[in-house]
């Protein structure tokens, strides 16, 4: 049986935004994430985006690019598609920003807007609203360094028939000097649109499977991490 098809890929990395069908390669070198502005993501004014902290912007932008890449950004009726992302540091950068408003020296007036984004799942909720996605929604915190736990969980959900489409990926931003010593091994946000092969109409980037031991397989070949998975997908599809 064929595993799910990778129908679209989108990302925000230290090298900037990108999506599969516009990319020749997937450069990934460490560094700070550049600011993500509304114009980079949505051509039209977007009331919510400007109020989001950087962590949520990165995640929402990566999801938008993945759906655009799969030709699934536009919608009329809600879709039962799930959202799952792995993370190591979660929304720690937002937590820091919020808690600065709690500490008396920060003014002692806690920001309700920032507090609303201090759960790592909140950007998935933003994406659910923006794109009409009504499936299971979760973040998985995982000590694994391969940044593939979100993809693994999505593949499991698809194989269990929980839904036919999953947005799966990884998100992490370094905490910076506010809390030294917390620097995730992977920085940025990246999502893939995964569709059960029988449902997919997209001309995709190959298929994914899970080995019995939990390894992620691209077209039957194991990949050691998220970067390698993206590169394998891009190489399979070839230049646009």
């Amino acid at each position, binding site marked *: 049986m064929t595993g799910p098809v990778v129908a679209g890929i989108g990302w925000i990395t230290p090298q900037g935004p990108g999506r599969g069908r516009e990319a020749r390669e997937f450069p990934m070198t460490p560094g700070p994430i550049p600011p993500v502005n509304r114009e980079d993501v949505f051509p039209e004014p977007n009331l919510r985006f400007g109020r989001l902290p950087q962590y949520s912007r990165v995640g929402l932008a990566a999801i938008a690019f993945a759906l655009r890449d799969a030709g699934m950004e536009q919608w009329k009726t809600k879709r039962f598609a799930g959202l799952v992302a792995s993370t190591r540091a*979660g929304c*720690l950068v937002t937590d820091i920003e919020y808690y600065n408003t709690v500490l008396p020296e920060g003014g*002692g*007036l806690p920001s*309700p807007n920032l507090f*609303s984004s201090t*759960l790592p799942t909140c950007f998935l*909720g933003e994406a659910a609203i923006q794109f009409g996605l009504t499936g299971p929604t979760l973040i998985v915190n995982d000590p694994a360094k391969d940044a593939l736990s979100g993809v693994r969980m999505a593949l*499991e*959900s698809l194989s269990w028939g929980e839904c036919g489409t999953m947005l799966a990926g990884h998100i992490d931003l370094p905490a910076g000097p506010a809390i030294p010593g917390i620097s995730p091994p992977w920085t940025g946000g990246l999502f893939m649109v995964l569709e059960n092969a029988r449902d997919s109409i997209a001309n995709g980037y190959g298929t994914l499977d899970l080995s019995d031991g939990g390894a992620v397989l691209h077209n039957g070949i194991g990949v050691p991490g998220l970067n390698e998975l993206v590169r394998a997908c891009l190489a399979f599809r070839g230049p646009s």
Partner: protein
Amino acid sequence: MSEVLITATASITGLGPDLDTTWRRLLAGETAVRPILRFDAGRYSTRNASWIEGLETRGDRSLLYPLLERLLDGFVPLPPGCRLVAATTKGCIDTFERVRKGLPGAVDDIPVSGPLAWLAARLGLDDPGVNVNSACASSTMAVARAAAMIASGRADAVLVVCMDLVSEFILSGFSSLQALDPAGCRPFDRNRNGLSIGEGGAALLMMSAEKARGKGIRGIGSVVGWGAANDATHVTAPARDGCGLIQAIRLAMAKASIGPDDISAINAHGTGTVYNDAMEATAFESVFGSRRIPLNSLKGAIGHTMGAAGGIEVAVGLRSLADRTLPPTTGFGEPMERCGFPVSPLPQPIGGRYLLSTNSGFGGINAALVLKGNPE
């Protein structure tokens, strides 16, 4: 598909260090919501929360560890190859607060990988497992995940550990959202005015029925259905029409191969906020029509324990099925408008074998579980 048993449970709440104490005090209609002594809460809309007495730790470590130590003290041995699925929304948030205040704190504890590694070492597990974060439905989603892992044959046994702390971070946030009831949480009450935060933990050992029975373990009950759906409507407020919760409940009942007539009790999320409780009543009405199923919420008694809520509610739900008694809804006085389901400040008898347990959270997340009690 393998049947999924829950073979052991433990909980710790503001009402008590174990499930028996919590259960007894729940039935008595007591509440653990009281003034916080752990930090100065004077700046916020309430000073009250449900917190655990006597949690102490070395200066730079989180109170989450003594909470977990008490939770796991005396817990049954885990079978070989047991997997770990944890659920917390903010983990060692007190350590985060300490570090941001310039006080000593174990920075490695701040990412959830910290408590995961601690749990794996404490439990002697090779695999550190994962933490599921789905806002206030985290542990419901963790139980659903564990059930799916077992049902599909990916795991024979999974330990679900749920946990969250009362902290200034959380209290200040809900205070800023004007979501706290200074009088204490009053679920499904006409005069409800917000939630009370709480802290707690639960441990649930889940096993395939085949594996458990091979070891002579009968189990406490089963997880027979689970479902999750997003409202896709609002990030912090529930959908007024309950669309996500309705879908989650229907998915859970379909997975359990049962219909609305089979559910004999509902343990609702019941946060005591105006919109959550109204949304839940709308959703239950939509699914169950004119059936009047006993309904309760634990949050007036133990507060909203966030990432631990669903796990504690599963442990209590299984006890409810075993004792054929739904605990009181502490804080409830007058029925709210447009809720025809029986909610009571007293224990309610329940007759059948299936209990529905639901949770919802920020991000539009809804999750539902169907629990089945063991026959006599």
